[in-house]
């Protein structure tokens, strides 16, 4: 008993000792747990709170509403319209197969489209929106609406999309929008920032150049979501800003006329205000309907545009470089006058094809077989005598010519970096040839440069600017296409004279007047006698290939020559002559002859432009009054 009791005392001592050890351990562990809790919940609270919010809050961005583009009178050129769309949230549909087949029948979808939709459905989560169609016709849209009673979960939606009411009329000015691709996102910070799937961004033209201004900012919806990404409730809706709208200087009536005039032809027309530089119309033909691109162009339409031999995708006004032909003659004349090479009475005898100008074994023909006889400046310009200008160019030299030509805006981009597609053209001089081709300049090349052939290349918009600066009396202007462009820096050398003696400009102007309004002038048949509309111009016919002796003998009519070998027809003009305001340039690719193809268009155009002028000026006045 004593033994056992001492044993149990020992046992009790042991167990109590061990209990004490365990108890202390427990206390330490408990302190550890509490400090861990303190660390997580108090010290690191901010970090985990952020993580928790990141978990539960998700943002949905909606596509921003794009700013509109209007013409000078406020007509919408690129606007937004309500696109009728059909959405389905698969999760909310009881019998998806039934509904989707029903929708297929109602919308008369092709099997290909249908498969596409089914494929899209498999790629998204069941609670995400499936866009069955993004641009329904009103007819189909109302049909769906009529059948909604047995289409559970189908949602007809009206969403905002781009639309170009003038269709092909403005394509080469405004461009078009289409779904943003990786390149677009990569190259633009603002697109990256506002990107949502299906966002449409400018691809060419002003839509691209002014992307940053037009795009606007996203609407942002903040939702609380659960672990599976399902939206539980909306926390916030942040309205985005609509893109800024853009007002152009273009008059859509004139623009429409340019489209009519160049219908079925390849070419370009541009019209410019000779004082403000405002572009009134700018068209490159053929054009295409930009609306085709908004929802992604179909393969057939795309092939049709791509394979058109007249190249609708090329903006001929800015990208097309052509030999200016005789339209360069006013500059040649002006340069010679300015440099004192010739005076008003300088005369050359044009003796026709039998006695061409000969130089180092090369012959240089005038266009007129019989020759013009003795020509002074005014007559040579009026009748566009090549022989006269060969002689003038020979005496002037290409370097002095190129200097004047560059002064008047040839050989460099008219709009600066506004359009990234714009070409510089080429105004050659001796230095250029040495650098670019490594050869020295030949005198013969000077001679053909005098009639706008050879290396010289200009774009239609450059010719228009050149004419405008002759028309306004020889003052520098800066062309613009955006009406209220606050960003444009005030040009310091605006209206600085480009001449040494204003009388020289007068002489050239007078010669151009004669060319259009006097008998035997090359565009005499396209004249308007009413001084209100009377204009002065210069025709041009740019050779596409060298004329051989054989051609000269055959002397074929335009329609007898294959299309690609026909000459380009050009015409530049400004008017009204008494009180000039507008200049234009017309180019018809392979149009044959400047005086028969291009000049008649100018007649129609000037009628329209001058008629619209009154309205335009009243708009201006109104603007000033408002200020």
């Amino acid at each position, binding site marked *: 008993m004593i033994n056992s009791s001492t044993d149990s005392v020992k046992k009790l001592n*042991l167990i109590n000792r061990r209990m004490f050890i365990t108890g202390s351990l427990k206390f330490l*562990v408990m302190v550890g747990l509490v400090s861990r809790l303190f660390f997580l*919940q108090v010290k690191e609270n901010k970090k*985990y709170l952020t993580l928790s919010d990141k978990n539960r809050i998700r943002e949905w961005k909606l596509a921003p509403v794009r700013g509109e583009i209007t013409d000078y009178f406020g007509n919408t050129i690129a606007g937004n319209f309500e696109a009728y769309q059909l959405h389905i949230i698969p999760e909310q549909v009881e019998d998806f197969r039934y509904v989707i087949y029903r929708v297929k029948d109602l919308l008369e979808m092709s099997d290909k489209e249908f498969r596409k939709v089914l494929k899209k459905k498999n790629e998204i989560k069941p609670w995400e929106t499936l866009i069955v169609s993004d641009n329904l016709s009103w007819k189909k849209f109302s049909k769906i609406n009529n059948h909604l009673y047995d289409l559970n979960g189908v949602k007809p939606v009206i969403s905002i999309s781009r639309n170009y009411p003038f269709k092909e009329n403005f394509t080469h000015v405004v461009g078009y929008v289409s779904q943003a691709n990786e390149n677009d996102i990569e190259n633009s910070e603002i697109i990256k920032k506002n990107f949502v799937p299906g966002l449409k961004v400018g691809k060419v033209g002003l839509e691209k150049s002014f992307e940053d201004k037009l795009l606007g900012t996203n609407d942002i919806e903040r939702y609380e979501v659960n672990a599976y990404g399902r939206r539980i409730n909306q926390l916030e809706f942040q309205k985005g800003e609509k893109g800024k709208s853009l007002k152009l200087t273009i008059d859509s009536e004139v623009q429409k006329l340019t489209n009519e005039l160049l219908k079925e032809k390849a070419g370009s027309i541009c019209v410019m205000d000779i004082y403000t530089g405002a572009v009134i119309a700018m068209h490159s033909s053929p054009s295409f309907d930009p609306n085709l691109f908004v929802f992604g162009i179909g393969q057939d339409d795309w092939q049709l545009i791509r394979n058109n031999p007249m190249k609708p995708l090329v903006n001929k006004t800015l990208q097309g470089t052509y030999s200016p032909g005789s339209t360069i003659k006013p500059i040649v004349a002006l340069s010679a006058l300015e440099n004192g090479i010739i005076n008003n009475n300088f005369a050359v005898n044009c003796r026709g094809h039998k006695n061409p100008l000969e130089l180092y074994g090369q012959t240089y023909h005038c266009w007129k077989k019989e020759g013009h006889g003795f020509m002074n400046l005014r007559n040579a310009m009026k009748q566009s005598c090549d022989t006269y200008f060969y002689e003038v160019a020979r005496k002037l030299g290409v370097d002095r010519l190129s200097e004047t030509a560059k002064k008047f805006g040839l050989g460099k981009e008219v709009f600066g970096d506004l359009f990234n597609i714009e070409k510089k053209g080429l105004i050659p001089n001796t230095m250029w040839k040495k650098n670019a081709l490594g050869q020295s300049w030949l005198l013969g090349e000077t001679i053909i440069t005098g009639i706008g052939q050879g290396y010289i290349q200009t774009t239609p918009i450059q010719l228009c600017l050149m004419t405008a600066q002759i028309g306004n009396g020889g003052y520098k202007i800066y062309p613009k296409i955006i009406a209220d462009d606050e960003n444009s820096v005030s040009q310091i050398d605006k209206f600085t004279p480009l001449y040494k003696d204003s009388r020289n400009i007068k002489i050239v102007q007078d010669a151009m007047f004669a060319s259009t309004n006097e008998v035997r002038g090359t565009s005499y048949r396209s004249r308007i006698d009413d001084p209100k509309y009377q204009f002065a111009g210069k025709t041009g016919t740019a050779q596409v290939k060298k004329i051989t002796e054989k051609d000269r003998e055959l002397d074929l009519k335009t329609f007898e020559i294959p299309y690609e070998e026909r000459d380009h027809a050009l015409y530049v003009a400004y008017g009204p002559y008494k009180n000039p305001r507008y200049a234009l340039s017309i180019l018809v690719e392979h149009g044959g002859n400047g005086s028969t193809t291009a000049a008649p268009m100018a007649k129609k155009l000037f009628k329209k432009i001058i008629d619209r002028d009154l309205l335009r000026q009243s708009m201006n006045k109104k603007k000033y009054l408002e200020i």
Partner: protein
Amino acid sequence: MYQHTRLSNNSFGFFQKFRNFDYILLACILLLGFISLATMYSTDGGNILFHTKSHFVKLVVFTIMMLIFSFINIKFWFSIGYLSYLIVIALLIWTYFFGIKSSGSQRWMDLYFINLQPSELMKICIILCLAKYFHRMKLENVNSIYTILTSLIIIILPMGLVIVQPDLGTSLLIAISGVAVIWFAGINHKYFIYTIMGFLISLPFIISFLKPYQKLRVLTFLNPDRDPLGAGYQIIQSKIAVGSGGIFGKGFLKGTQSYLEFLPEKHTDFIFTLFSEEFGFVGSATLLIIYAVIIYRIISIGISSRSYFAKIFCYSFGAAMFVYITINMSMVLGLLPIVGSPLPIMSYGGSSMLATMIGFGVVMSAKVHSQQAIA
């Protein structure tokens, strides 16, 4: 005084027993029950749905059962020590052959009105069994090879039966319960040190024997970010929930992590996470204090118990409880790899609650019959 108690010892009146109740322990258990109910209500999204109802019923039934158990003389619990162990072993074997399969393991047996998880009961029965085994043993015999081997067999047999289910977590908890008894029984502390050292040395080999999913858990524990949406998801989300709770929590029924279903297993093993998110550091610390008070009361009942059996049971049960709580919390706080271990009373699950309540019942019985000696 001594005389009086000695005399009244044999004729314990009902009211006497009632007076001997440990009311602090009872109050803590009831408070814990109430908190667990509220938390369960929150996991159901603020509605009284299946889990809340079921948890409530279990809580009421098992609390009443505990109270009844506390009136049963501690002698009785001593007497069924071996028997209960054998019964649960039999149940485990039954489960091994006829148990219900669910999510890759076979842990439950179908008792028609309740699906019982015998491995949970084993946590308590192994303590009863070993406590009885050591009750009458002389101290010099405790460290004999025979005793050590027997007690090891008693521990390893159920462990093996549970591991094959497979359920590593519970089998570890059973082992810890058993080892706690051996520790308090007085087996030489050198053995423990050797075992721990041996375990640490053989750890790499043990890991190579682990199942792929268990290895993954260990790897995930070491670096949860290696697969944040897969294996590391649970622990990352759990830490986010706890950490975002802050000092005062997001408020009752406002835990976004649980509401938006970011939390896995929020009814069972991860219930503390939800509680912690909604009630913050203050709430969590309070919950820990309640647990601490419960364990403290269990130990002090052990101290005041006259019989060695009651003492060793109380100490071991207190230690085991502490380990369950610690392992569960460490797991959800990212201090231990994820092993399936419920938080006593708080977690949803009948068997676990049954086992815990039986334990409380025996402890309470020890308190009520604290002057009862066992021959």
